[in-house]
Every structure is written in structure tokens, then in C-alpha cells.
């Protein structure tokens, strides 16, 4: 894919900050220097009370803007500059190591937040300073276990599911994870995220490994081979995606008949665009989204203020009125209500609803934070074969 979700050409080149390699030079006349100073400092001064928040783009970023970016700006007067990325630590590491930090707050998955924290790329968070729950319970008690880490504060639960386009399957309908890998019964191309994460889990579960033994299997060579063999069986039919906004697009264009996707993106396509997509919850992989502050953020105070605001029950519940992701705080569960724009009851669409939760696998971020580099290499080697 060369066009990323915002339609820009993406060359895989690292983002470069303006002025990243300014060096002291020979004396030059004063007036260009002055002009330069105005050009360089001018925008910085104007941005003094603003924050750069980095998120996953598309309908999820839009939900966050409506739910807590805009209210935060209205309350504090601090403007928010939104940037998109597709996850990963590389851009943050580049900023911290060159001492040129221009991202303040980043929306991350837990595995990345934990790794980033260990490497000193993120600011530690004092959970005691976070606002209490809706029922007054202190933050440490209110957050679901595992959603607060040393540097990351959980915001919501999301799931990677697979969805299919109803129009492409007039007869029998896919209903299990095994169906996703069954090209005979359900022909057509499949969309999958171009990472080993979640795909290996899907492959094993589809191959009949019980949910509670998936990660035990991945720890063995036989288990890994089994996962890749399963992926092999559909390899020539896979279309790889990178940004969360791509799968609904690919399903709508008919580029694929089914695709793995984030559940909220498919939900939004269903209710807002009336797309004939169906989510299959069998074997979905549940993970927590977190917010974290980049170490050395030039707007640390404002970033902390924003983080506190964004992780209140009110903000979490508000996000859940735009996209089907459920609050990372226990006191938020009871407050899940309807989709703001269409009035659809959100409860059945949330990944943590009991019926959905029962068929779901909890993403083991601990295992992944240890093995991501190794698995990436294996995955690339497999892609090249």
C-alpha cells in the first residue's frame, strides 16, 4: 500500500522535524538571522498553548476529537494538533533520542506503551493523581486490572475481529474463525493487518488450538510452525492493510470479501454508511488502548492536564457514544448508552459485553513485548518466501 489512510504518499521515510539538523555555522549578516528567528520561533510562540496528540486516524480519531479533544480545548483554552500514525515505537524513539520531541501525547497499544516505558521513552504516570471513578472510587481501584501501567493510562477496550461483506455471501455465512481460513467454503480475498500480532493468534485458534492454550503454543517451535502453516493456506489470497481505516474501505470496494479489522471501525461503517458488513466475534482478540506522554515533551504540564481529562469516566463514556469501544474504568461500564448520531444501543456492539467477551482472547502484551522483534523477522521471512 502506498497511500496511507490520509491519502498521502507514504514512503516509509521517518518523519523529520523541521530544523532537525540545524548546526552552528559561520557568521552571516544579521537581518537573515532575524528573519530566520522569526520564521522558526514565530510558529512556536503561536503554538505555546497547544498540544500535539497522536492517534490512529479515521473514525476512531474523529470519535476522540468529539468526545474529549474539543471539550478539553473549550475548558482549558489549550488547542490540540492531531496527528495520525499506525502504531509502533520508532517515531517516538527517533524524537527522544535526537532530543527533538514534538509529539506530546500518544494513543498506543499496551505492548508498545510498556516497551516504551522500559526504554525511558515515555513519562511515568502517578496513578494517584488521576481523577476518581464515577462512583468516587480512587483511580487505582476504578481502572480494570491491566489497564494502568507505569507510563500508560488505559482509555478503552477494543477488539480485532473479522468482518465480511454480506453481499458477497448470499448463501452460507461465515460464523467461525475457521471459516476465515476456509477458501473452499468461502472463496475470495482476505484482508489482514501486515503484522504478526493477532494474526498468529487467529491462525492457531482457527486451526483448533483452544483459546487458553494459544500463547502456550506460540512459545514452542511447533506452535509457531503451525500458525505460519495455517497462514500459508490462505497466503496468496491475503491483501495486507496497515491503517485501521483501510479494512472498511477494502470491504466496501470489493477488494476483499472479508477482513480482520478493529471492531469500532466496522461498527461505524455499519451505522453511519449503512454498509452491509457483519462482524464475526468468534475468537476476537481483546486489547486495551492507552494514552501516554512522550518523555521530554515540551508541554509536560498541559500534557498531564490533557491525560487526566481524557481518562475521566466522562471522556471514556463519551468516546463510546461515537465508536463501539468500551471504557477502561469499571464505573464506566454501567454508563454505556446509545450511539449519539443514530441512537443505536451501544451495549451489544461493545467488545466487553458478556456475550462478546465470552468468545474473546485477551491479547498477551507481555509475551508480545518480548518477542515482537523476533516475530517480525519471522513474519518478514515468511512474507518473502
Amino acid at each position, binding site marked *: 500500500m502506498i497511500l496511507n489512510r490520509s491519502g498521502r504518499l507514504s514512503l516509509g521515510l521517518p518523519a523529520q522535524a523541521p530544523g532537525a539538523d540545524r548546526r552552528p555555522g559561520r557568521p552571516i549578516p544579521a537581518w537573515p538571522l532575524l528573519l530566520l528567528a522569526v520564521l522558526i520561533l514565530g510558529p512556536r510562540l503561536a503554538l505555546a498553548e497547544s498540544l500535539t496528540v497522536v492517534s490512529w486516524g479515521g473514525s476512531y480519531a474523529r470519535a476522540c476529537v468529539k468526545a474529549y479533544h474539543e471539550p478539553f480545548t473549550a475548558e482549558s483554552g489549550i488547542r490540540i494538533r492531531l496527528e495520525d500514525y499506525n502504531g509502533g515505537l520508532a517515531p517516538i524513539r527517533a524524537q527522544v533520542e535526537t532530543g527533538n520531541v514534538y509529539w506530546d501525547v500518544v494513543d498506543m497499544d499496551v505492548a508498545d506503551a510498556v516497551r516504551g516505558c522500559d526504554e525511558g521513552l515515555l513519562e511515568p504516570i502517578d496513578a494517584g493523581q488521576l481523577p476518581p471513578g464515577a462512583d468516587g472510587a480512587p483511580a487505582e481501584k476504578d481502572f480494570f486490572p491491566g489497564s494502568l501501567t507505569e507510563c500508560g493510562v488505559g482509555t478503552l477496550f477494543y477488539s480485532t475481529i473479522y468482518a465480511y461483506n454480506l453481499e458477497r455471501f448470499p448463501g452460507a455465512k461465515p460464523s467461525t474463525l475457521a471459516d476465515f481460513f476456509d477458501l473452499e467454503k468461502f472463496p475470495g480475498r482476505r484482508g489482514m493487518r501486515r503484522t504478526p500480532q493477532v494474526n498468529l493468534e487467529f491462525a492457531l485458534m482457527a486451526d483448533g488450538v483452544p483459546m487458553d492454550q494459544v500463547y502456550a503454543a506460540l512459545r514452542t517451535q511447533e506452535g509457531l510452525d503451525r500458525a505460519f502453516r495455517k497462514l500459508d493456506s490462505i497466503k496468496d489470497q491475503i491483501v495486507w492493510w496497515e491503517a485501521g481505516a483501510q479494512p472498511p474501505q477494502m470491504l466496501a470496494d470489493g477488494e476483499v470479501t472479508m477482513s480482520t479489522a478493529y471492531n469500532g471501525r466496522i461498527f461505524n461503517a455499519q451505522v453511519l454508511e449503512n454498509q452491509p458488513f457483519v462482524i464475526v466475534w468468534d475468537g476476537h482478540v481483546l486489547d486495551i488502548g492507552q494514552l501516554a506522554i512522550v518523555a521530554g515533551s515540551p508541554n509536560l504540564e498541559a500534557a498531564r492536564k490533557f491525560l487526566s481529562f481524557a481518562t475521566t469516566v466522562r471522556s471514556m463514556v463519551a468516546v463510546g457514544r461515537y465508536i463501539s469501544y468500551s471504557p477502561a474504568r469499571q464505573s464506566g461500564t454501567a454508563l454505556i448508552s446509545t450511539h449519539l448520531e443514530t441512537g443505536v444501543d451501544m451495549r451489544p456492539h461493545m467488545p466487553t459485553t458478556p456475550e462478546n467477551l465470552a468468545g474473546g482472547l485477551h491479547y498477551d502484551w507481555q509475551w508480545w513485548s518480548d*518477542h515482537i522483534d523476533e516475530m517480525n523477522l519471522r513474519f518478514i521471512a515468511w512474507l518473502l518466501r
Partner: protein
Amino acid sequence: MRAAALVLPLAAFILATFVAPLAVMLGRSLYDPLVADALPQTLRLLRAWDGERTPPEAVFESMARELLQARREKSLGRVATRVNRVQAGLRSVLLKSARRLRGTPGSGAWREAMIAIDPKWGQARTWHAVRRAGERFTLRHYLHALDLDQAPGGGIVRQPPDLRIYLPLLRRTLAVSLGITLLCLLLGYPIAYLIANAPPRRAHLLLLLVLVPFWTSLLVRTTSWIVLLQTQGVINDLLAALGLIAEDQRISMIYNMTGTVVAMTHVLLPFMVLPLYSVMRTIPPLYMSAAASLGASFLQAFRRVYWPQTLPGVAAGSLLVFILAIGYYITPALVGGQSGQLISNMVAYHMQQSLNWGLAAALGGLLLGGVFLLFLVFNRLVGVDRMRLG
């Protein structure tokens, strides 16, 4: 003397922007002091270890203290990442141990305490990995770049088949570069001949047709190939409209090897045409006529009179195209899809994604060494002073 002063700015510029960064990067592929600086005592003690049984208590105590120290200095994460590259899974063992060891056990109890935190501390493999990650000067990255690895007990072994990436890619890169060089030669030779032997006015026009794409941005040319070749693109649309292919049988000509070869051949063609042209221009057409008048057929005359004289141009063009192709990055990244990726895309991956700069540098070093070798061989066969670069 004064002449030397004139090139001084350029020399300084090249030194600062090319030679120095190159040296620093190549240095990274061999030298990595991070772990050695963080665990000096432990590594010293490990030197005396027999390599088979669990190390003695002193090693555990020193390891624990240095882990805690690294944690205080916030370098633990980077140390753990380095060790994890030698043996996957050790990252969290190190981090977890430093986290839990805060309630320090008394002297003599470090070994039990650490093995209780993670049984991997009791395995010799773990300590071998620590020792290897602690080497200041290491050939590890070069071994990895050749799909090799050091066995825990010493000796060099091949990586397991599902981790072999670079040699197959290197082979693919060489094959593709050779293929592109040949294609460029086949396509470029007649064009160069045509330009060299056309009347001046037409020659200028033809030369301009070669130069205009040459001056056009690489990105523009690559993206125009996307417009032409994609499944919903110009060529497929045309073929479908003419009824030559069915609507659902559109040919995939891009995001695969075909895309890479087509786009790269087009991008690199001028580098072949220009040296060829500059050599052919100096060959008087009379030679061919003389050969013909002595009874040689066109093919004979070409093979025995013309072709040998163009060899310096052929050599120069081929070398240029081949060297450029071997390190090509943007075009395969844009139009190569999965099957059209080359070794430089892996260098980019390790520079930007995995941030394993040592390995990226080793891959780059291998490429550089290969090109150097090639150059030497060429120099032997053709002689650099005989080559005409344009």
C-alpha cells in the same frame, strides 16, 4: 598548492556529509559498548565462568547490582533490548528481575532470589547470551546479515530456515540487478546507436527525449508507472476495453516483481544510454563502411569492428546501472509489493522500524563491500581509465 585549496571546501563537505557518517555507521556494525558499559563487573566475572554450569553466586550478585544501577540510570530498557536481540525473551527477564529485586536479599541469597524470579537465570544459555551481548567489538551483526548465528558454545551455525531472510534477498537483489542491467543494455544500445548516428538536429531531439525523463523526479516517474500498470490502470483498462482480457482477469503488473523490474529499468535507462552514446559518438561511421567494403556482412562488421569499440561504454553503463540497482530503495518500496522487495528495503526496515542500526549497518557494509569487489574485478577486466561515463 593553490589548486588543492580550491577543492578544499568540496573535500571538507564530502568528509562531513559522506565519509564521516559512513564511517560512523560502519563503526556501529562492529562496535556496540552499551551492554559492556552497563554490566562491566558481571562481564568480567563471566570471563572466568566455565560456560556449562550455573555461574557462581558472585556473578548473580554483581548482575543484580548492575541491573538495579542501570534501572536507576534509565538505561536498563536499552540494555534489555540489546540482550533480547541475542536471545528473544530475555528482555522481560532482565526488566522483571530489576523490578522485583528492589527488596534486596541478604548476601549469599542472590542466586536463589534471581532464579526464583525467573528460572531462565539458572540456564547456561541465558548467561551465554549476556556474555555475547556484552562484547564491545562484535561480528554478530555481520553473521546475522549472512543468516548465520553463533552457537551458545562457540562455533557458527546457520539460522533456522524460518529466520533466513538476508541471503535469499541478497540473491534476489543480485539477480534482479543483473536482469535490469541486461534489459537496460538491450533497450539502450539501439537508442544510443540511433542518436550517435543521426544528423545533428534529430540527434539533439532524440537526446532530449532521453534527458527529459532523466531530469524528471524519480517519484513522478514511479507513480506514473502505478497509474499505467495498476489493475484499474490505463493498460488494463485498454486491454479490457479492447476485449483482450475479461473484466475479472485483469493482469497484476504492479506491487510485485514485474512492477519493480519495469519501473527500475525505466528509471535507470538513461544511465546506460548516456555513456554508450558518448562512446559511440567518437566511433567514425567510416569504420563500418570500410568493413563492408572489404566484404564483411553487417553482422560480421558489427561483431568484429563496432561492438569491440563500444565496450568501454557498455562496461561503464552496465557498472553504473548495476551499482545503482543493487542499492535501490524507493522504487521497490513503492511498486514492489511484497514479492518485489530488495535488500535495501530490509536496511530501511532495520533503520526505521526495528531500530537495529547495527544490523542495518552490517547489511549496508556487505553491499558496499560487494560493490567494491565488483569495481576491482571490473578494473582488472576493462580498466577504469578506459571506461567512459558520459
